[in-house]
C-alpha cells in the first residue's frame, strides 16, 4: 500500500512504471493525503475518491448464436460474452426492445451488433438501421463493423453490406447503398429529412427492417430528444406501411432514467440491462478548486491556468492525458498552453493536439490515430470526444470546468482507463456557481444518481411540425393516433391552413382494407426541410460580417437574437470580436464588423410573465423529495389558507420580453464600463414554467430595508436558477428567470418594487415555445431546489455575494447575500420536519 492506497492487482508483481508515475503525479497534487480522507470544501483539493476495480463476469457464447459469427468473434479475440452483453443479446433475439446502460469500454457495440449480425447471417434479406447522434460516431462505428464483416467474409464468405448514409454520402452512391446495405448507419437528422420523406426508395430497407439501434440514447434529451420521439413515431408508421415491426436496441450512458427515456422515445415497453459484466480498472477521482485570490470579490485563480498545472504534472511523467475544455475557445487556449510547456522539438511528431468540431475529418482521424498508437501524449478536446469515438486507453482525464451534468462527467472521466487499466480523473472547477457547488459538495456528485433525461415529444410546436412531415409521408387515417394529443384535431387545424385534406369513403387514399377515411397532404412543400431537429423553431437570426465582402459568420436562434445581436452588441466567434452595426429585425439579419475592444456586452431585458393556466399547485409543507402530486392543495383551498407562505406551482405562462439596454463589461476584471439604451420589438412566447410564490408578509418580515430585501430576492432567484440548471441537466439558455408580481403592473414602472410589499413570484420558465418538459420536474424537486440553493449561497467563501452564488456584488447590492440567506432560511424554517430532513440531507 502506498500513501495513495492503490491496491496491487497482484501482490507478487512490482508496480509498473506507469503506476509509479501516476502515484507520483497524484502525490504532487495532494501531498501526503491519504485516500480515505474526508471531503475538504475549503482546501484546494476538495475531494479524493477511489473507485475499486471490478472483475469481468463472462458467460460462454449462447448456443443458438450463428457459428459464423462465433468464429468471427473468436478470430478477433472474443471468446465469451460479458454477462450484460449476453442478457442484451438474449432479449433482443427474443424480440424485446432493449435498453443497455453501458459504462465506457464495456463492449456496448456487441450488445447490438451480435444479435443483428446473427439475424442477418441467418437470413440475408434482413436489414438494420443504426442511429448515432453525430456523423463522426457513425464513421467510427463503420470502421468497427467493416472490420467485423471482413472477418466474417474471411471465415465464411458471407457478404454483409455496411454503409453510412448521411449528408456526406455522395448522390451517386445513394442508390446502390439503398439496394445493398444490410446495415445503414445514419443519424436522426438524415432519417428525418432524407430517408422517411423518401421511404418508397427505401422500400427494401423498410420491408425487411428487423432492428433499429439508437446509440448514445442519453444524448437525446430536451429539444433534440423531443424531435427524435416524433421521428420515431414517423418511422413506426412507415414500417407499418411496409409490414415491418423492428426491435429497438438502445444503448445509454449512465443516467437516472434510461428505461423511461427509451420508452418515451420508442413508445413501447423496453427491457433494461443495467448490470455490467465488464471489468473496470481502479480509478482515482480528484476535485480541484483553484485557490481564492481575492476574498472580497470571491475571485479565484483562473481555472484554465490551474488545469494547465494539473495536466502538466501528469504529462511531465509521460502519462497520456485527455483534457476536456468547455468551449472551442478554451480548447485552443489550453492547447497553446500545453504546447508551450510540452511542445515537441521542431520537426518532431506533434505530441500535444487539439480536437473539436470544426476541424476537418482527416485532421480528426489523424489525432484519433495518434492517441491510439501513443504518439499523441495529450489531447485537448471539447465534448467532441466525450462520446464513444475510439481513441484507445488513456491514463488521465482532466476536466477544465464541470461538464454540466453528472452523466457527462462520468463519461469524460471514463475516457481514461477504459481497458481495465489504473487511471485517474481530475475535475478543476471554474468559478461558475454550478462548478462551485459541485466542487464544494463532492457527495452531491459521488453519491447521487445522475440526472434524468427529460423530453417532451408532445410539445405542440414540435408535434405539429412532425404531423406535417408524417402526413407528407403517408396519409393519416381518420382513426389514427400520433402522440398524446388528439392528432385528428391537429389535422383539422392543418386542413384549415390548406396543408392536408380529409377524404372520406371509397375515394380515400388510406388502407384499401376499408378504413373510414384519410387525411392527404395537399401542399407543394417538402415539410421536413423547414424543420431542424436541433431547435424548436427554424426561425433564426443570421449574422453577416460586413468588414470585407459580406459573408455569413453565424446564426442565433430567434429567442436569443435580440439579447445577443442588438445594435452595438459585441458578438464573439472563436475569440474574434465583432460589433453589431445594425439589426434588421424583420429580415432576421444582424450586420457586424470586426472590432478591437476590451469589453463585451450584456443585454438588459425586461421580462413579464403572465400565468395562463396552473396545472398543479402545492405548498411546501406537503412535498416530499418526490413531491406526490396527489397531495397538492386544490386551488380553492389556497384561498382559505393564506397563512401558508411559499407555494410551488407549475403551468402554462405567457412570456413577454424586451431588450431595453445593455452594459459594457470589461474582460478579465468584469467592471462595468458603460451602458446604452435600446428600443427593440417585444418577443412573446407561450411556454411552461415552475414558479415559487413568496407572500408579502414573508418578505416584510425580513430584517432588512426594502431595497436590500429586493436585492436579496434577486440574489436568491439568481442562485435558484443555477441550481435549477444543475438539477435539470440543462444549459443556461434552456431556462429563463423572471421575478414578477404575477399580475398586470403599471406599464410605466414594469417590475417596480413599491414601498408596500406585495406577493412575489419567481418564475423559472422553459425558454422554448411550448415548453420542453422542465417545469413539472422542477415542481417535483421544489424542496431540493430550495435546499441546494441555500447550501450554495451559505457555503460560498465570498463576503457579500459573488458570481458564484448570488451574482457579482457590484450588480446585486451590498446586502444581497445576507438578505438572500435570510429569505431562504425563512422559507426553509417554516417547512415541515419532513421537508427539512430532505433539505438538510440533500436527498
Amino acid at each position, binding site marked *: 500500500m502506498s500513501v495513495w492506497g492503490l491496491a496491487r492487482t497482484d501482490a507478487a508483481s512490482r508496480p509498473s512504471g506507469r503506476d509509479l508515475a501516476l502515484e507520483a503525479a497524484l502525490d504532487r497534487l495532494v501531498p501526503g493525503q491519504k485516500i480515505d480522507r474526508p471531503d475538504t470544501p475549503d482546501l484546494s483539493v476538495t475531494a479524493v475518491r477511489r473507485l475499486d476495480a471490478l472483475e469481468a463476469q463472462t458467460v460462454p457464447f449462447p448456443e443458438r448464436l450463428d457459428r459464423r459469427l462465433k468464429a468471427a468473434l473468436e478470430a478477433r479475440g472474443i471468446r465469451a460474452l460479458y454477462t450484460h452483453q449476453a442478457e442484451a443479446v438474449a432479449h433482443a433475439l427474443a424480440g424485446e426492445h432493449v435498453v443497455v446502460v453501458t459504462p465506457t469500454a464495456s463492449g456496448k457495440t456487441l450488445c447490438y451488433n451480435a444479435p443483428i449480425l446473427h439475424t442477418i447471417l441467418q437470413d440475408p434479406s434482413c436489414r438494420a438501421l443504426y442511429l448515432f447522434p453525430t456523423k463522426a460516431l457513425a464513421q467510427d462505428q463503420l470502421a468497427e463493423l467493416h472490420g467485423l464483416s471482413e472477418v466474417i467474409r474471411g471465415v465464411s464468405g458471407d457478404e454483409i453490406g455496411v454503409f453510412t448514409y448521411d449528408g456526406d454520402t455522395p448522390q451517386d452512391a445513394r442508390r446502390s447503398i439503398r439496394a445493398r446495405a444490410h446495415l445503414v448507419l445514419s443519424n436522426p437528422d438524415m432519417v428525418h429529412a432524407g430517408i422517411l420523406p423518401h421511404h418508397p426508395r427505401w422500400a427494401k430497407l423498410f420491408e425487411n427492417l428487423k432492428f433499429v439501434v439508437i446509440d448514445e440514447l442519453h444524448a437525446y434529451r430536451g429539444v433534440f430528444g423531443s424531435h427524435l420521439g416524433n421521428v420515431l413515431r414517423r418511422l413506426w408508421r412507415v414500417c407499418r406501411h411496409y409490414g415491418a415491426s423492428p426491435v429497438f436496441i438502445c444503448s445509454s450512458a449512465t443516467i437516472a432514467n434510461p428505461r423511461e427515456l427509451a420508452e418515451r422515445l420508442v413508445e413501447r415497453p423496453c427491457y433494461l440491462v443495467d448490470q455490467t459484466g465488464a471489468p473496470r480498472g481502479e480509478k482515482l477521482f480528484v476535485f480541484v478548486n483553484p485557490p481564492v485570490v481575492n476574498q472580497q470579490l470571491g475571485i479565484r485563480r483562473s481555472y484554465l491556468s490551474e488545469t494547465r498545472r494539473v495536466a502538466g504534472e501528469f504529462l511531465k511523467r509521460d502519462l497520456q492525458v485527455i483534457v476536456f475544455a468547455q468551449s472551442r475557445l478554451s480548447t485552443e487556449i489550453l492547447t497553446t498552453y500545453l504546447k508551450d510547456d510540452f511542445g515537441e522539438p521542431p520537426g518532431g511528431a506533434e505530441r500535444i493536439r487539439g480536437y473539436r468540431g470544426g476541424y476537418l475529418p482527416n485532421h480528426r482521424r489523424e489525432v484519433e490515430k495518434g492517441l491510439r498508437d501513443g504518439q499523441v501524449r495529450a489531447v485537448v478536446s471539447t465534448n467532441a470526444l466525450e462520446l464513444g469515438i475510439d481513441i484507445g486507453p488513456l491514463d488521465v482525464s482532466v476536466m477544465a470546468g464541470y461538464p454540466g451534468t453528472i452523466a457527462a462527467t462520468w463519461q469524460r472521466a471514463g475516457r481514461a482507463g477504459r481497458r481495465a487499466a489504473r487511471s485517474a480523473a481530475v475535475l478543476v472547477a471554474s468559478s461558475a456557481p454550478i462548478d462551485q457547488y459541485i466542487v464544494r459538495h463532492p457527495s452531491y456528485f459521488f453519491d447521487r444518481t445522475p440526472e434524468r433525461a427529460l423530453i417532451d415529444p408532445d410539445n405542440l410546436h414540435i408535434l405539429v411540425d412532425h404531423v406535417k412531415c408524417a402526413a407528407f409521408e403517408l396519409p393519416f387515417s381518420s382513426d389514427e393516433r400520433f402522440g398524446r394529443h388528439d392528432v385528428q384535431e391537429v389535422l383539422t387545424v392543418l386542413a384549415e391552413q390548406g396543408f392536408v385534406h380529409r377524404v372520406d369513403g371509397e375515394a380515400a387514399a388510406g388502407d384499401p382494407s376499408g378504413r373510414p377515411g384519410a387525411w392527404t397532404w395537399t401542399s407543394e412543400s*417538402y415539410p421536413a426541410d423547414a424543420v431542424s431537429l436541433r431547435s424548436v423553431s427554424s426561425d433564426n437570426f443570421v449574422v453577416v460580417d460586413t468588414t470585407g465582402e459580406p459573408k455569413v459568420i453565424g446564426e442565433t436562434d430567434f429567442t436569443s437574437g435580440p439579447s445577443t445581436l442588438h445594435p452595438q452588441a459585441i458578438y464573439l466567434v472563436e475569440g474574434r470580436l465583432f460589433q453589431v452595426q445594425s439589426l434588421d429585425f424583420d429580415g432576421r439579419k444582424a450586420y457586424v464588423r470586426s472590432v478591437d475592444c476590451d469589453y463585451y456586452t450584456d443585454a438588459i431585458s425586461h421580462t413579464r410573465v403572465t400565468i395562463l393556466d396552473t396545472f398543479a399547485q402545492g405548498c411546501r409543507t406537503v412535498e416530499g423529495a418526490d413531491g406526490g402530486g396527489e397531495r397538492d392543495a386544490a386551488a380553492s383551498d389556497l384561498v382559505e389558507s393564506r397563512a401558508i407562505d411559499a407555494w410551488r406551482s407549475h403551468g402554462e405562462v405567457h412570456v413577454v420580453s424586451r431588450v431595453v439596454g445593455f452594459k459594457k463589461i470589461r474582460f478579465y476584471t468584469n467592471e462595468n464600463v458603460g451602458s446604452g439604451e435600446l428600443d427593440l420589438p417585444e418577443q412573446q412566447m407561450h411556454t411552461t414554467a415552475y414558479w415559487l410564490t413568496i407572500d408579502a408578509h414573508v418578505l416584510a418580515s425580513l430584517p432588512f430595508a426594502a431595497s436590500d430585501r429586493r436585492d436579496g430576492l434577486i440574489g436568491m432567484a439568481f442562485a435558484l436558477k443555477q441550481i435549477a440548471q444543475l438539477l435539470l441537466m440543462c444549459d443556461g439558455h434552456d431556462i429563463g428567470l423572471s421575478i414578477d408580481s404575477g399580475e398586470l403592473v403599471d406599464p410605466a414602472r414594469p417590475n417596480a418594487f413599491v414601498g408596500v410589499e406585495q406577493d412575489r413570484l419567481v418564475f423559472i420558465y422553459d425558454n422554448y415555445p411550448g415548453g420542453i418538459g422542465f417545469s413539472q420536474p422542477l415542481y417535483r424537486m421544489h424542496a431540493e431546489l430550495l435546499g441546494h440553493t441555500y447550501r450554495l449561497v451559505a457555503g460560498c467563501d465570498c463576503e457579500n455575494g459573488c458570481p458564484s452564488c448570488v451574482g457579482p456584488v457590484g450588480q446585486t447590492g451590498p446586502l444581497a447575500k445576507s438578505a438572500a440567506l435570510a429569505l431562504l432560511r425563512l422559507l426553509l424554517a417554516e417547512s415541515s420536519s419532513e421537508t427539512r430532513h430532505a433539505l438538510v440531507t440533500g436527498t
Partner: protein
Amino acid sequence: MTSRLSDRLREVVRSRPPAGASSAPEASGGTPDAAAGPSRAVEDTLGGEWRTIDAGRYFIVERRLASEGRHGSRRIGDLAAQLERSATDACLFAGGARPPWLFFDLETTGLNGGAGTLAFLIGCGAFDPDGGFVIRQYVLTRLGDERSVLQAVSRLVRDAGALVSFNGKSFDAPLLESRFAYHRLPWIASTVPHLDVLHPARRFWREDGKAGAPCSLAALERQVLDAGRDHDVPGAEAPGRYFQFIRSGDPEALVDVLEHNRLDLLSLAGLTARLLTLVREGPEGARSGREAFALGDLYERAGWHTQSHAALEQALELLSPSPRETIDRIPGAQSRTWHSAVNGSGPGVHLPDTSAEVNCFEEMKTAMAGGDGVRRSSVGPEAKRASDRLRAEVLRALARSHRRAGRYEAAALRWRQLLDGSGCTPELAREAAEALAVHHEHRRRDLASARVFALRTLESPVSSVRHTAIRHRLARLERKIREAGALLALTGLES
C-alpha cells in the same frame, strides 16, 4: 369544433411557414368532398371515362389527333412518318431504343419529390398505324385510385419499345418509380430504353448555349416547331389547381391542365421527330451552326469520326460571320471568301509576333461591322457573343479532330483561329496556346514561337500543377533556345 387545444394549435400553426399561396384553399371549411357529388361531373367536364383493372377503377381521358391535324408547321401524320423513317437512328440517343415510342409526361403535386408528391396526371402519347396521335391521360380523380392507375400505366409501358420524355430521366421517371415502390408494384420501366429529349435539346437548340440556362419545352416548341399556345396554363399552376379540385370536387380547374399536358406531349413528339430526322439527314439538314455542332458531337460520341468532322465543318461554315450572309441570307460563297482571307494570313501563324495577324483580324471585324454600313439588326450583342462562343467550341472540336487524324498543320490552323477569335474563353485560350506550344516545339521545331505560346498559356488562370508543367516547358524551351543560339554563334564563328 373549437377547443382549447384547437386554439393553441391554430396559434402554433400560424407561427410556422404557410402551406404556400398556390395551395391555399379558396374558402376554409364547408367545401364538399371530392367524393360527395363527383363522378358525373368529372366525366363530363374532363371528357373521360372509368375503366377497371384487377379489383380497382381508374379514370382516363383519351383523345386521338388525326394525321391531317397540324402542330405548328407540321402535319401530325408527317411527324409519324419522320419518326418511322428515322427509327434506327434513335439508338444514338438511347441504346436499344426502337418503336413503338411511348411519349410520357407527368403533372405532379410538387417539384420536390418524396413520398408526399403525387403524379396526379400521367399523360401518355403514341402514334397509331394511321399516323394519328393517341393521347391517354390517367387522372387521379380519387386519391385512392393511384394503385389502379399505376397498374394500367404499367401495361402501357410494357408494350413500348422506348419511353420518350422531356427531363423524364431526372424527374418524371424517378417520381413514378417512387410511386410504384410506394404501392410495392414492380417498376418495369427500368427495363425499357428511355430517350430524354431534354439533353439533346440542350445541345441542339439552347439559344445561348450557356450551361444552366433554361431550356423549356414551351420555348423550344416556338423556336424549333413554330408552334405556339393560346391561354396556356403554366405548369407551375398545376399543383394548386389539383388541390383546388381535391378540396372542392369541381374538376373545372383541371380542364386547362389536361390541355397543357396534351400540348406538351405533342411538342415532345415534334421535337423527337426533328431530332431523329436531323440525325438521319446529316449536317446538310442542319438549320444552324448549333445544330450542326451538336450533330458533330453526337457522331463523335458514337465513334463516327468522319461524319463528325463533316458536321463540324458545316457548323463552322454556318457560323462564319459574313456580312453578306446576314444581308442576303445566302450561306456559302461569301463565307468561303472570308475563310480564304483568314487562310491567307497563313504565314502569320508561323510568326511568334501575332500583332500582324491581330491587326488583320481587327480589320476584318471593322469591315464586318461597318464595311457596308450594315449590322445584323436582328441579332443583339448577347446573341453575337453566344455565336462567337459556339464558333470557338467548333474550332476546338475541329482542331482536336484534325489532331487525332494526324493532320497537325490543319489542327494548328484551327487552334490559331480559335486563339484569335472573339469567342475564346480563358480555358479555351489556354488549351489552344498549349497545343500550339507543343506543335511548334516538337513538330515545327520553331522554338521562339513555341516560347511565345507557352508564355501565353500563363495569361489564363491555371492550377498550380499546370503552372509547374508550364514552367517546366518554358525552362526547357529557354534551354533549347540557348543551346541553339550557342550553336548558331559557334557556326557564326566558324564561318
